[in-house]
C-alpha cells in the first residue's frame, strides 16, 4: 500500500541540512590541510630562528662582544625572541643575566613586553611581567605595581618577582604587604618564583610578623592575617625564632594556625608551648606536634612521644614513632623498650613498621 509522502518542504529542510553538513566537513578538511601547509612552511623558519638566536644568546651570556654581529630581528619575530630570551634568563645565574638584559634592551624588547601586558591571554601577560623584571626596566615599575596590586593572584606573584628583580630593597615592603593580603595563594608558585629573594623578603617579613598576643583580643581578621604570614614564611623557608612561634602556640586555639605554626618549629625555643598541644583534640595538630618534636630532637620529649605512639590516630602514631627514632642518643633498643612498656599492640606494630622502613632505606 502506498502512503502519501509528507509535504516536500520538510524534505528540503533535511536535504539542506545534509548539504550543509557535507560542506562543513569539506571546509574542516580544507582547514586541516591549510593548517598542515602553514606548519610545513613555518616550522623550518622557526627552527632556524631558534638555532640562530640560541647561539647569539649563549655567546652574549658568556660575555662575548656581539657589536655588529647581531642578526636582524624582524618585528614579527620579537615575541618569539622574547620567549627564547626568557628561557635563557630563567636557566642562568650570575652576570650572564645582566648581559642578556642589556642585549634585550638593545633589541627594544621593553616596548613589546609593555604591549603584551595588555594582552587578553593571561599566559602572555605573565610572561611579559617576568620579562620586564629581567629587563630591569625602571620605567615599567608603575605598570608592574599595578599588576601587583590590581592583577589576579598569579599576575601579582609574577609582578612581585619582577619588582624584586628590578630593585628588591625598594619594592620589598609593597611586595610583602600585597602577598599577605592575597588569600588562596598558590604557595608552590610563591616558593618557586620568590626563593631567590628569600634574604631580603625574610627581613621585611620578620619586621612585620603579626603580634603574638591572644589573637581573639586583636583586631578582627588578625588570626587570618597571622595564618597567611605563617604560610608565606613556610613557602619562603624562613627561619622564625622559636620563642615567637611559641607565643603563637600559647595564644591561639585556631587549628589551621596551630598547624601552620608547628610546621615552622625548628629549635628548642618554644617547645613548652608546643608540648601543651600534644593532647589537642584535633589529630592533625597532634601529628604535627609529634613531627616537630622529632625535628627538635630533645631527649626530654621521649616520654611524651612514647605516649603519642599509642594515639588512636594512625598518623599520630606514625609521626611519634618516627620522631622517637630520630632523637639523637636514643637507640632503637631503648625506643623498643619504651614502646613495649606501653603494652599497646598498635604502637608495637607501628614501631616494627617504621624500623623496617628505616632499615630498608638506610
Amino acid at each position: 500500500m502506498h502512503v502519501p509522502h509528507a509535504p516536500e518542504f520538510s524534505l528540503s529542510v533535511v536535504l539542506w541540512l545534509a548539504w550543509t553538513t557535507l560542506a562543513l566537513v569539506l571546509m574542516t578538511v580544507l582547514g586541516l590541510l591549510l593548517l598542515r601547509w602553514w606548519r610545513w612552511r613555518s616550522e623550518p623558519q622557526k627552527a632556524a630562528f631558534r638555532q640562530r638566536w640560541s647561539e647569539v644568546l649563549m655567546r652574549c651570556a658568556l660575555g662575548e662582544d656581539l657589536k655588529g654581529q647581531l642578526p636582524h630581528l624582524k618585528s614579527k619575530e620579537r615575541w618569539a625572541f622574547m620567549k627564547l630570551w626568557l628561557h635563557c634568563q630563567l636557566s642562568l645565574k650570575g652576570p650572564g643575566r645582566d648581559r642578556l638584559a642589556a642585549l634585550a634592551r638593545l633589541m627594544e624588547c621593553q616596548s613589546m613586553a609593555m604591549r603584551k601586558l595588555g594582552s587578553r591571554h593571561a599566559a602572555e601577560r605573565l610572561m611579559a611581567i617576568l620579562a620586564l623584571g629581567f629587563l630591569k626596566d625602571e620605567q615599567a615599575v608603575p605598570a608592574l605595581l599595578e599588576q601587583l596590586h590590581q592583577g589576579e593572584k598569579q599576575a601579582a606573584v609574577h609582578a612581585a618577582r619582577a619588582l624584586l628583580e628590578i630593585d628588591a630593597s625598594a619594592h620589598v615592603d609593597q611586595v610583602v604587604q600585597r602577598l599577605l593580603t592575597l588569600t588562596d595563594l598558590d604557595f608552590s608558585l610563591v616558593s618557586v618564583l620568590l626563593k631567590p629573594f628569600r634574604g631580603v623578603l625574610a627581613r621585611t617579613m620578620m619586621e612585620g610578623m603579626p603580634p603574638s598576643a591572644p589573637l581573639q583580643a586583636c583586631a578582627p581578621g588578625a588570626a587570618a592575617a597571622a595564618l597567611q604570614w605563617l604560610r608565606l614564611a613556610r613557602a619562603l623557608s624562613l627561619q622564625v625564632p622559636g620563642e615567637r612561634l611559641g607565643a603563637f602556640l600559647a595564644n591561639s586555639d585556631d587549628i589551621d594556625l596551630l598547624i601552620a605554626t608547628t610546621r615552622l618549629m625548628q629549635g628548642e625555643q618554644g617547645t613548652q608551648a608546643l608540648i601543651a598541644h600534644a593532647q589537642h583534640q584535633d589529630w592533625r595538630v597532634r601529628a604535627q606536634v609529634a613531627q616537630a618534636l622529632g625535628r627538635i630532637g630533645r631527649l626530654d620529649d621521649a616520654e611524651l612521644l612514647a605516649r603519642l605512639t599509642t594515639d588512636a590516630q594512625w598518623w599520630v602514631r606514625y609521626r611519634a614513632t618516627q620522631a622517637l627514632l630520630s632523637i639523637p642518643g636514643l637507640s632503637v633498643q631503648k625506643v623498643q623498650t619504651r614502646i613495649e612498656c606501653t603494652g599497646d599492640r598498635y604502637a608495637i606494630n607501628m614501631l616494627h613498621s617504621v624500623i623496617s622502613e628505616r632499615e630498608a632505606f638506610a
Partner: protein
Amino acid sequence: MMAQTVTWLMVAYFLAIHAIYLMLTVLAARALLRNQRYREMEELPMAYSLLMPPISVLVPAYNEETTIVATVESLLQLSYGEFEVIVVNDGSKDATLSVLIEQFGLLPYPEAYRVQIPTQEIMGIYRSPRHAKLRVIDKRNGGKADSLNAGINASRYPLFCGVDADSILERDSLQKVAKPFLRHPDMVATGGTIRAANGCDVRGGDLHRIDLPSNPWALFQVMEYLRAFLFGRLGWSSVNAMLIISGAFGLFRKQTVIDVGGYRTHTIGEDMELVVRIHHQMREQGLPYRIEFVPDPVCWTEVPEDRQTLRNQRIRWQRGLSESLNAHWGLMFSRSGGWPGWVAFPYMVLFEWLGPVVECLGYLWTAYAWSADLISWAAFAAFLLVSLGLGILLSVAGVLLEQLSFQMYPQVRQIFKLVLVAVAENLGYRQLNAWWRIVGLYRWATQKEAGWGTMKRKGNWQAPQ
C-alpha cells in the same frame, strides 16, 4: 503521516545529539586555545617546588606478569617532587607478585596498615630496599575497585592517582594533573587525556615514537579517544560537569574519596560511579568542589585490536555506565544539581545510555520505512546524510582540534589516515559499536556476571635488560 513523524523524530534526535557535541566542541576549542598559551608558560625552566602536594600512585594489578615490571619502572621515573608507587596485587593467578619480588628485590614489611575503607584480606605488604618509593600490597582477589580501596588505605599522601597496570605515563604527567589542585583549594579530582598507544613504539614501558596503528579496530579507537577526550570531557569540564574520569589515569583528593565511601566494589564502571557519586554527595551537602580535565596527553594505553576483545570491553563499559547512572538518579534534576544534575546527567541518560537503542532503531526504522515505501528515497538518503554526515563532521573536527593543540600526529600521511578513519568509522563501526552497547544494556538489565576481562597485548612491554 505516522511514518513521516517517526522519521522526523529520528532526525530530530540525531540533530539534538550532534548539536550538543558541536556545543562541546566549541567549549573545548576555547579551552584548548587557552591551555596552549599556558603550556608556553609552563615550558619555562622553573624549579619544582617542594610545596607541590605529594601523590600516591596506585596501580591495581590482576594477572599482569608480562607488563607490571615495565609499568612500575616507568612510574618510578616520573618527574615529580614527592610521590610513592603502590602496586596492589589483586590475588593474581599468574606470577605477577613473584616477578615484582624478583625484579625489585621486595622484602616482606610489617607495615601498620590502616583500614579506612573495608577491603578483602591483605596477605602481605612488601617494600623494595632499592626503590624507596615502591610498595606492593598483596591481597585476596576482590576486583579493581577493591584493589584501589586497599591502595587508598595504604597510601600516605593526600592525593592519589589511580593508574592502570598497562598504561604508559608521560614523565611530567603528575605535574600536569596536580596543577589544578594548586590553583583551586576546592579541587577534588582531575583527569588527564588518554591516547591509544597502538602503533607507537613502546619499549620497556616507555613511549619512544608516536604513530598510528595499522590495525583497523585500533585506528577506529584512536579516533574515538580523540573525540571523547578532546571535546567530550574538556567541554563538560569547562562547566564543572564532567561525570567520568578514566580509571586509566585520574588524580583524586583522598579525603574526599574516603568521605564518600571509596570505590564501590561489585561494579564494573567504578571510575565513573565514583565521580558521579562525588558530584551527587558534594552537591547534596552544598560543599564547594571542582572536578577538572587536563587536556594534555598524559597517559597512553593499548586498546584492543581484535573484534572479540573490543566487543567485551564495550559491553563492560555500557554496563558500567548503566550501573553508575542507575545508582544516582537522585542527582538528575535535583534542586542542587547544577550543570551535572540538569544537563550532564540527562545528556548521559538520553544520548549515551539510551543512545545506542535509539540509533539502532533509527537505522532499522528508516530502512524499513523506505523499503515499505512509507518514506521517499530522498527522505531516506537525507536521513542517512544527516545522521552519518554529522558524525563525520564531529570526527573531522576532533582531528582539527588535535592538530590545533597537541599535534601528536603531524605528518600529512597521518592526517589523511585520520580523515579517512573519520569517514569510515561512521560506515559500519559506529553501528556495530551501538549494537554492542545494546548487548551491554541487556546484560546489565539481566544482571549477568562480569569481571575484569582479559586484554590480548601486542606491544613490547618487556622491561629493558
